[in-house]
């Protein structure tokens, strides 16, 4: 039993790390948002695995359903903001967002 849980947690951890690396290294704004999605889905894998193997029960599955909905909402707003940035700067390279500093 425990070994199975660990396998799922490993998948979740790999997704999480991939997402964090993606957020840190991508210069394209959309790429960064893809990294965020990977992190959220890594957490989702954890939730579903925990709900199957520990006494977290259905709470974990409900949690992951909420996360899927919230991720969609967040992605919608983030893409709208990225589009607005593109309209003003004609690029979505996050390194070009450097006018505000100090």
């Amino acid at each position: 039993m425990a070994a199975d849980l660990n396998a799922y947690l490993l998948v979740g951890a790999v997704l999480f790390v991939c997402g964090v690396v993606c957020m840190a290294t991508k210069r394209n704004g959309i790429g960064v948002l893809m990294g965020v999605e990977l992190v959220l889905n890594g957490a989702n894998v954890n939730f579903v695995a925990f709900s199957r193997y520990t006494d977290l029960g259905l709470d974990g599955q409900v949690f992951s359903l909420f996360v899927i909905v919230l991720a969609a909402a967040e992605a919608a707003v983030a893409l709208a903001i990225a589009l607005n940035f593109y309209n003003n700067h004609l690029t979505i390279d996050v390194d070009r967002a450097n006018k505000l500093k100090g």
Partner: protein
Amino acid sequence: MLFTELINSLITDTTQSLPRFGVELCLSATIVLFLLMRLTGLDRLIPACLTATIGALVATFLAYKQFDALHDLNAVPSVKIFTGLLVHDLFSVYFRGFLALFLLLTVALTSLTGIPDEDDSPDFYSLLFGATIGMMLMASANNLLMLFIGIEMTSVPSYAMVGFLKGRKPSSEAALKYVVYGAGAAGVMLYGISLLAGVLGTTDMSMLAARMTEAAAGGSGGLNDPELRTASLGIMLIMVGLAFKLSLVPFHFWCPDAFEGASAEVAGFLSVASKAGAFGLLVRFCLSLSGAPGTESLMTSFGVGLGFIACITTTFGNLAAYTQTNLKRLLAYSTIAHAGYMVMAVAAMLVMANGPQAASMQVDINRSIEGLLYYLVVYLFMNLGAFAIIAIARNYTFSEELDSFRGLISQSPTLCIGMLICMFSLVGMPPFGGFVGKLFIFASAFRAGQIHWFMYVVVAFGALNTVFSLVYYIRVLRTMFMEARPADARPVPVRLASWESAFVVTLAVFVLLLGILPHMMSQTANDAAQSLAIFR
């Protein structure tokens, strides 16, 4: 359980919970009203700011009613509503009232300065009200699910509000930075929640402490125990998300950029309201974890770590504010520093609640939360006052640089006097509210020093930073009062008998009152803190 039984118990639960959810329902109804008015074209006849004012007024009134009802001695001090997802006690009602009042003041400010133009105002107010509901959920969360939903419900409208001035380059850049960092922090926090909930086997925050004890029972109780280690990792990742919302160092970098790009009204809203909600959540989360036998030393070290972060945050915020020439950016760094002061109270609470004589120190624990709650109220008035003055002056000078405020005293003395009161209160000068708030927080941190020596260091840093902060606030005041107004500067003719002046004067009067008569508000804050302790 039979299906009908399940449905019946759900119906009973919901009907009992809904009256206690009145403030949030009122705000939700106002949002629906905005959208319907948009659909039917009624928003051309009735200005949206009028609807928003009425909605916020009703919400404030309802929150006041709830507070009154809970103050009744016979009332049950703390009730779990919606099958235990939220908790209804004086603490959450205090935050509800606070946020509803702040919403009302923000709506008043936006209708004075007219930052969302007539076309956009229904959308803007929908976002504003939605974010406020999210903050109220944060302050009354009793489940890790509500913790996450509250934070997201606050963040997503905030991203859109920061980028609301669509055609302006700084605004779009600020929104992009805020959304990228914010979404990243939320993802990291969610991973932490999954670890904590999975290891402890529950998402109910009132059961976390007991489960922590169970997890610690088998092992050494320290970080060598794999279960506790995973739980601690989860707690730390959740703290990353909260620290981002509170703009604590090292997760503060979004704050100056977002504030500089956003309009001053939105920056004022974010600097007070989203911090307040996050503090409510931080207190609830920390209290739900503390007091578990077997994990005291772990939790004390978390408290000390929080105190360390508070020291770094205040010092960094105050030092970085020195070189700023943009007033909004300067106030953003001041916001970071103030978040640090307020975290000191939470650190003191965490250290005391996990100390050896936690039971006998209940009064002191309540005092530290009281200090935080009092400071938040003072902070509402003084920070909103400063941002409001920037917004009002901007409408005349079209600039938020410090230079455009040079010699303002010769043209609009009301604004300058208002700024003087707000800034002296932000420093923590005696006759103003900021002094009392700081005194409460430093006193409780000093009391916590008896448990762990590091809290004495925290108090020393707090006192030192008060001196640091004096310099840059005085620099702003000197520019406004002592220098001559340049001949080519745009005039700022704000007369005493105008709505703008009335707004600033109202805020300034409250800052003064909170400094002169602290016992009025501090008793209320203490009652709210006590309801938390009963809950524990």
